[in-house]
């Protein structure tokens, strides 16, 4: 049986008349970690949204565990073990930390319930200190931790983090990357979209770089880290 979790084939996505993705191929297998990188506006988030059904591609196919999900609604993709942590967080502000977590709880695709409320608390002890606080009372860093915690409560096989540390201070970002590294060690496949190439290539074994809606690099993170010219050319500011 194939261990492919998510695939995109020849994806073309438009926003109105603007052609954003130009025939992108993408795939991720169980346990794999991919750092999806590129400067602002290069199509990283659009690629993620196109694969999850949040934005509809005009051409191309999306496969989830080998099944055609090109026109499937987003919730069906989530039910197949793919958890998405979007830019800008998106917790329920009127619910407590506990309620935010508990309402997300469900078994994974194979019935696994490895990520329990207690385990999420152990992974994010800070959330334990805020357990009865409302979502609106949390700082940006705590909200981000809660969003990741909620995603884990769905017992996913693939966790997609889209700009998870955007707007957070470096100390908090470092702490979140440390925790994500720990999560990676549990075997959950991960796609991380982030501008901090140093951090994400230290977490993920594979790296992809997008430029103007096309893949210009798909290889190992080691290759990226050992190639300052590549970083400067495509990721430097």
């Amino acid at each position, binding site marked *: 049986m194939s261990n492919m979790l998510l695939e995109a084939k020849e994806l073309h996505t438009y926003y109105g008349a603007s052609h954003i993705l130009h025939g992108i191929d993408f795939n991720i297998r169980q346990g794999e970690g991919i750092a999806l990188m590129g400067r602002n506006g290069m199509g990283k988030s659009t690629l993620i949204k196109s694969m999850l059904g949040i934005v509809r591609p005009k051409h191309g196919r999306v496969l989830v565990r080998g099944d055609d999900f090109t026109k499937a609604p987003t919730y069906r993709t989530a039910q197949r073990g793919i958890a998405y942590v979007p830019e800008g967080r998106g917790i329920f502000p009127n619910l407590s930390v506990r309620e935010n977590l508990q309402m997300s709880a469900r078994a994974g695709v194979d019935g696994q319930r490895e990520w329990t409320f207690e385990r999420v608390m152990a992974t994010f002890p800070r959330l334990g200190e805020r357990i009865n606080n409302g979502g609106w009372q949390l700082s940006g860093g705590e909200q981000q931790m809660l969003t990741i915690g909620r995603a884990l409560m769905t017992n996913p096989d693939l966790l997609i983090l889209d700009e998870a540390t955007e707007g957070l201070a470096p*100390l908090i970002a*470092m702490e979140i990357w440390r925790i994500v590294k720990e999560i990676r060690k549990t075997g959950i496949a991960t796609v991380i979209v982030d501008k901090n190439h140093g951090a994400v290539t230290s977490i993920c074994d594979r790296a992809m770089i997008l430029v103007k809606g096309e893949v210009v690099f798909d290889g190992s993170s080691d290759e990226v880290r050992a190639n300052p010219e590549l970083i400067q050319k495509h990721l430097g500011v």
Partner: protein
Amino acid sequence: MKQQSLEIIHDEHRALAAMLNGLRAIAAGIESGRLQPDYALLADMIRYIDEVPEKLHHPKENDYLFRLLRPRCPEAVPVIEQLEAEHAQGDARIAELRAALASWQQAGAAGFAAFHEVLTTYLDQEWRHMNTEEHEVFPLARKHLTAEDWAEIDAAFLANDNPWQGAAGEYQALFTKIVNVAPAPVGLGG
């Protein structure tokens, strides 16, 4: 060639940069009156940059990376000597920072300006130091060190299993404590 040791150094620089950035932001918050001084937090942050970069990170650079690069690349020698001299001054500079913190704590608000000046000097020097390593020395290391050199450096770095966390996770625990206590938006504290 993988050069895992350089990856470890980059990771360590990122953690140090985050701590330095946090110190600068907290000091700016105190200066503007937005934050109240938390001497214990500042002492923990200084302890972190003392125990982790000064005592663990810099010796590794001196003993392995710089030592092997010297004979391979004569043009790197002046900058290596400058960096080693800065490493050698590390203890004294941290002591000065600690003394400035203690003086401020004793003097009250009037002592902040002197501490802030010492801190700013320290932070500026550390940024310059890291930038010199990242932009001048590491590219030369990549270019001139041989596979055997990297094998020796990598072995030394990897033998000391994740020193950034400490043998029993104590440095990681200190980092997490600082993140949890530091006031938002620098950290997660109230």
